[in-house]
């Protein structure tokens, strides 16, 4: 392609009308607690993997709600379960991670 000296950037806008939430909707059935997440971030703050590779359970849940692929981030999880222990809403995040893995399997 000819180089015109400029490029077109893709918009980063999240368009909720074109968001595919199928994975999230399925997870709402297997792990209904997921809906009560209030994005407090205690899961991410307690995550043993987070400081080294950017793993964040809060971001995983948000990405699911926004229809994004969470696999790259989840690959860093070591299933230690600390996030489940700290969640003030009692969301079984460790179980949620396993449900996500099961879905993609």
């Amino acid at each position, binding site marked *: 392609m000819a180089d015109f000296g400029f490029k077109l950037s893709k918009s980063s806008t999240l368009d909720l009308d074109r968001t595919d939430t199928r994975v999230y909707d399925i997870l709402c059935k297997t792990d209904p607690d997921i*809906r009560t997440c209030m994005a407090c971030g205690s899961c991410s703050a307690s995550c043993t993997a987070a400081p080294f590779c950017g793993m964040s359970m809060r971001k995983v849940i948000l990405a699911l709600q926004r229809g994004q692929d969470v696999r790259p981030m989840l690959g860093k999880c070591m299933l230690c379960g600390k996030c489940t222990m700290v969640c003030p809403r009692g969301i079984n995040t460790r179980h949620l991670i396993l449900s996500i893995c099961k879905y993609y399997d």
Partner: protein
Amino acid sequence: MKNIVIIGGGVAGMEAARQLLALGYTPIIVEKANALGGHVASWYRLFPDMTPASEIISRLKKEIAPANVFTGTKVISISREKGDYSLTLDNGVSILAGAVLFATGFKVFDASKKEEYGYGVYDRVITNRDLEAWLSGGEDKRISAPKAIGFVHCVGSRDLKAGNSQCSKVCCTTAIKQAIEMKEKFPKAEIYCFYMDLRLFGKKYEDFYINAQRDFGVHFIRGRVSEVGETIDGRLQVKAEDTLSGKPLKVQVDNLVLMSGMVCNQSVSELVRQARLDIDDDGFLRSRNNIFDILESNRPGIFYAGACTGTKTVPETLAEARAAALEIHNYLQNG
């Protein structure tokens, strides 16, 4: 026995009258509207137990029947006369009162002032008050089988540019209540609440929030709506930042509900000037002390109850009205 005049016949004025009657007084209520009840009379149900607002109003009306009530009447002047206050009403009646209770309430913020949200510009942008009227059985052509509904929190509240630094306290929970009510009516509709932070301070409010999330699937998006536009088919295009992911976000909705906040009632400013009452920075009446003397003004014998001193929920207002009745009783007893 000295007269007690209550200015304002909303829930604050009525509850104070009820308590004063129980204490053996016959208070005089002056209400500018043609009926008692104030704002609450036009609400549908009250959070968090979905109590019908009409139940509260009819109960109060029944219990204050022995009081002297002037509806459709305004106080046009107030002045100090020895230890008492002389009040003149616009129907020609003058009253000499030993104590005066300001229960003058608030005004709902005029949402059309926030032009970027399009109230009064785009048909399907409505306010919390419009929705409450529709829920009560009123007609509203703007609402018809919506597939998506947005709620914008903090409209005119926590907004220095709109002249209001205060949080209106009730809108977060009202939005949740109305979101649940809309989901009950339109189970397939997607509902989005755009908030900056959710202030669910009251008893059972947080449970109400969890309920909306878990049982009704209401979506909460942290980010203030920046602008609203109309699409070619008459729907609304809403733009906000999804601050949790740090990305701009857009979504189309059939109705956008603006949670208009509570602002000071400027229609009493002339009376306030005549009575030489202090006004706070937020425009509400200034209490003598915000902890110990919330119900007392800077003038002896003039008391406050309810949202005239700041934004309040219905139970907070009722509690203040009860306390104000007792303050007035003590004041009249001890001179």
